[in-house]
């Protein structure tokens, strides 16, 4: 079966002609260069005058795992306010800032997203995370396993374990939890909070293990790099949300010692202490450093005005910031010698000085970081705002005069403290396509995603050009997932199940001997119970297939 898309302006930054009117051909869910000799075209989609892009990829969105489910349970009123009625193909569920898994799949797909990555999968919670992602239909999924606050690694580091052992443990974790990358959240800080330490700077020692965040960051970045995992260590830096945290963010970049790292929700980590309120933008300093550090990629974690809920593994900082939450109810958890979590609702207001400046800082980062291949469009869903606000965010990036209009309405003190009004840059469609498609695919190692060349998955989004980019990106005319029409003008048409993306680097399984003893001495489940094999993850994740991406081990 050959399908043809005719007449669209194809924006495909990966290829030699990144912006040209050309036909696209799809056979068996894959893009092909054209018909074989004499092969008939079974179906033609007339896309004349439209814009085609690959399916979008969200590399940092909290879609699976216990903490979002805690948020749902904590805030049933948000679900009640945002019902999503059943349709011919969709089940009744709710949207809102902590959407149901069903709604997450439906709305992402309707917006032209075809792959989403859960960035904070606690290894002990991995089964549930895969189950929730399995009940997130249509889109492909993958998850980053959290390390760096688990007692096993901290003990290894405290005992001065050699790098091979750390590398084997990192690889073992990727296999056992069926993850595609490794994330570290407030390195050492979540664990330190369990010992009543209330803050932990990059060079401060963990009160029990004596290890510093700098050591944890360096060793994890090294292990991920040496194993050849495509995605660099995904880093949620120390001191999230704390005024003056620019210094620890810059120190975090240095801790990588030139190895690749990805700094996530950078907006929350770009704060200075200038001005009467001792809270200011440090976006310029951060952007300068990122521009000068080719080993660093970032996503922004833009905040959007309105009600949302923050769900983070960073129990230390969530506890500290809980007093700012609205409505005033929140959950903090210590988790299983592995990690932690904190769920705090937030209502970001444009008339509030701090919130307004946070909004401006995010946009400053977008506009000051020059290379669209290294800065990704996220709101840290749902922490800065729900993913459904992406079209609005794209408009803020593409339309300078609209940006200035909004700037004129925010808290005037905050507006006076941001350079945003002087930043004239407007993102092009090409740059939006890079930061939402081509670049996330590349940085995750998904060779057959994020582009429209032969061999790619036939994830195709057909947009109708519109003077308002928010309108254009909110409701594409057609969204195809693996060649199947899944959404049309915002309405879901079919609900297939997506694949699970993982990596499986080589390692020495001898590490399991030490882990088995550790589990017996400290855990409350056996090592065998902890591990998730391929068959089980496909059952839990309702996945038709496991997409295992290549790792190219590097020696160092």
């Amino acid at each position, binding site marked *: 079966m050959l399908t043809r898309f005719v007449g669209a302006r194809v924006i495909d930054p990966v290829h030699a002609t990144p912006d040209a009117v050309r036909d696209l051909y799809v056979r068996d869910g894959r893009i092909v260069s054209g018909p074989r000799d004499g092969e008939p075209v079974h179906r033609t989609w007339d896309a004349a005058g439209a814009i085609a892009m690959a399916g979008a990829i969200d590399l940092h969105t909290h879609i699976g795992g*216990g903490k*979002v*489910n805690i948020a*749902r*349970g*904590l*805030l*049933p009123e948000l*679900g*009640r306010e945002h*019902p*999503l009625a*059943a349709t011919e193909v969709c*089940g*009744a*569920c*709710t*949207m*809102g800032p902590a*959407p*149901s*898994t*069903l*709604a997450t799949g439906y709305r992402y797909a309707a917006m032209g997203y075809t792959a989403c990555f859960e960035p904070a999968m*606690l290894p*002990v*919670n991995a*089964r*549930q995370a895969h*189950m*929730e992602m399995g*009940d997130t239909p249509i889109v492909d999924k993958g998850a980053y396993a959290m390390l760096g606050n688990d*007692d096993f690694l901290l003990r290894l580091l405290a005992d001065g374990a050699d790098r091979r052992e750390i590398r084997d443990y990192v690889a073992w974790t990727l296999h056992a939890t069926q993850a595609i990358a490794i994330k570290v959240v407030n390195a050492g800080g979540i664990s330190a909070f*369990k*010992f*009543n330490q209330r803050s932990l700077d990059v060079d401060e020692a963990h009160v*029990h293990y004596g290890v510093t965040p700098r050591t944890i960051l360096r060793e994890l970045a090294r292990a991920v790099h040496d194993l050849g995992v495509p995605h660099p260590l995904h880093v949620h830096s120390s001191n999230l949300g704390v005024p003056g945290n620019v210094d620890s963010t810059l120190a975090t970049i240095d801790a990588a010692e030139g190895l690749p790292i990805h700094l996530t929700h950078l907006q929350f980590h770009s704060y200075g202490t200038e001005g009467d309120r001792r809270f200011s933008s440090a976006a310029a300093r951060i952007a300068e450093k990122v521009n000068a550090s080719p080993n660093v990629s970032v996503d922004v974690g833009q905040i959007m005005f309105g009600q949302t809920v923050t769900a983070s593994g960073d129990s230390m900082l969530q*506890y500290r910031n809980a007093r700012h939450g609205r409505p005033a*109810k*929140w*959950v*903090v*958890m*210590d*988790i*299983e*010698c*592995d990690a932690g979590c904190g*769920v705090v609702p937030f209502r970001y207001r444009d008339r509030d000085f701090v919130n307004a400046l946070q909004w401006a800082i995010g946009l400053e980062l977008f506009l000051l970081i020059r290379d669209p291949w290294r800065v990704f469009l996220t709101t840290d869903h749902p922490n800065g705002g729900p993913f459904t606000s992406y079209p609005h965010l794209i408009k803020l990036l593409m339309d300078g005069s609209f940006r200035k209009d909004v700037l004129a309405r925010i808290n005037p003190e905050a507006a006076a403290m941001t350079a945003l009004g002087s930043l004239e840059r407007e993102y092009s469609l090409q740059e939006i396509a890079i930061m939402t498609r081509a670049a996330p695919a590349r940085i995750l190692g998904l060779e057959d995603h994020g582009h429209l060349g032969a061999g790619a998955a036939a994830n195709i989004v057909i947009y109708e050009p519109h003077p308002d980019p928010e309108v254009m990106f909110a409701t594409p005319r057609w969204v195809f997932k693996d060649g199947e029409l899944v959404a049309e003008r915002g309405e879901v048409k079919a609900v297939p199940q997506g694949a699970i993306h993982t990596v499986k680097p080589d390692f020495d399984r001898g590490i399991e001997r030490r882990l088995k003893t550790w589990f017996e*001495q*400290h*855990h*409350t*489940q*056996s090592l*065998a*119970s902890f591990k998730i094999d391929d068959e*089980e993850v496909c*059952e*839990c994740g309702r996945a038709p297939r496991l997409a295992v991406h290549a790792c190219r081990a590097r020696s160092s």
Partner: protein
Amino acid sequence: MSLREATCAFCGLLCDDLEVEVAGGVLRVVRGGCARSEAAFAALGEPAAPPPRIAGQAATLDAAVAAAADVLRAARRPLIGGLDVDVNGMRSTLALARRIGAVVDHADGAAKYRNLHVLQEFGGITTTFAEARNRADLVVLVGDGWSRRFPRFLERIVAPGASGAATAARRIVTVTAIDPATRMALPKGAEVLALDAPLVGLPAVCTMLQALVEGRPVQPARLAGVSQEALVRCAEWIRAARYGVVVWSAADLDWPHAELTVQAIARLVRTLNGSTRFAALPLAGTDGDLTANAVQTWQSGVPLPASYANGSVDFDPNRYALRDVLARGEADALVWVSSLSGAVPPPASGVPTIALTRADVRLGMAPSVQIPVATPGIDASGHLLRSDKVITLRLPRLRENGLPSASTVLDALLGQLEQRC
């Protein structure tokens, strides 16, 4: 005969260190057992696959599913209850609920809601088993469910010398009066303080402890039935703890507005975290209650009990509580799904009932349709959420008896309903 490693599905602890002897399909716990698991495994008996029944008469599975579909087609306000199921059982239950617009609740929904109510009004600071095992230097035990309902909790989590970073000495407070046998079971070597408060006096005890911990001018002598000295000492222990854990089972707190007691505990824990570390560890997860609620919450965005009537989902603990819906005569068909312990039969309601039960369960009155289904962790593999709501464990299958899983039957039922409309 063979020995199999097993995970016990019969309480929320989900102990995964059992060894079970399988002889001719009969199961006997030989290691890692407790009174509860040994009885539960023994009650399973020989593997059997009794036929489904339509109004008490044996029938094929296809005929039973067709009859069940007829019941549901005629129903305008169906109710799905029980939910003593594993993850896939709940996934299929919800797919059916969405299709037929059912109200959905767990058999023990009322107990579960005591904790959920406080979460939704206040929040909480909680911990998990391995944290408690490794770090707790003080364990405050409320009620006696931690022993009666979760027999290995002390052994696996509280016994000193378990392991870990923090605990040179572990202190234990028993807040409410417990029987001598339970007291004897407390770990040797731990320093124990017994408050012996009456269970219904808990709200007052919690409030008094909060006041003492905060150093407010209160008169602990004025609390009836509790020794003043013990209360003051308890407050000192709590203040001195570096990692304190307070444990209860909401099923023990069976009186009107028991959520106020849970809230008092949550408040005390929050106060303590101003200076030290302290966390709640509520025990639950038995009979699939946490599993059913978790799957409902992630798939729909709101917890149980909920209604799927009119093509939308609505959470309302007052309107959709199972027993109230039946008592008010608001259901005209009942689907009862109970594949794990089978402890709670479908309530006598007078409405046409479709019961998916364990093979060994005999119901007093013949329901419209009864379909025996496999028990997860016994006749089929499955997944359940543990008490601390973070760990999901796989329950491997231990024997073969040819029964379909609840999920298979529910999917077939859904298929029937979708075929003919």
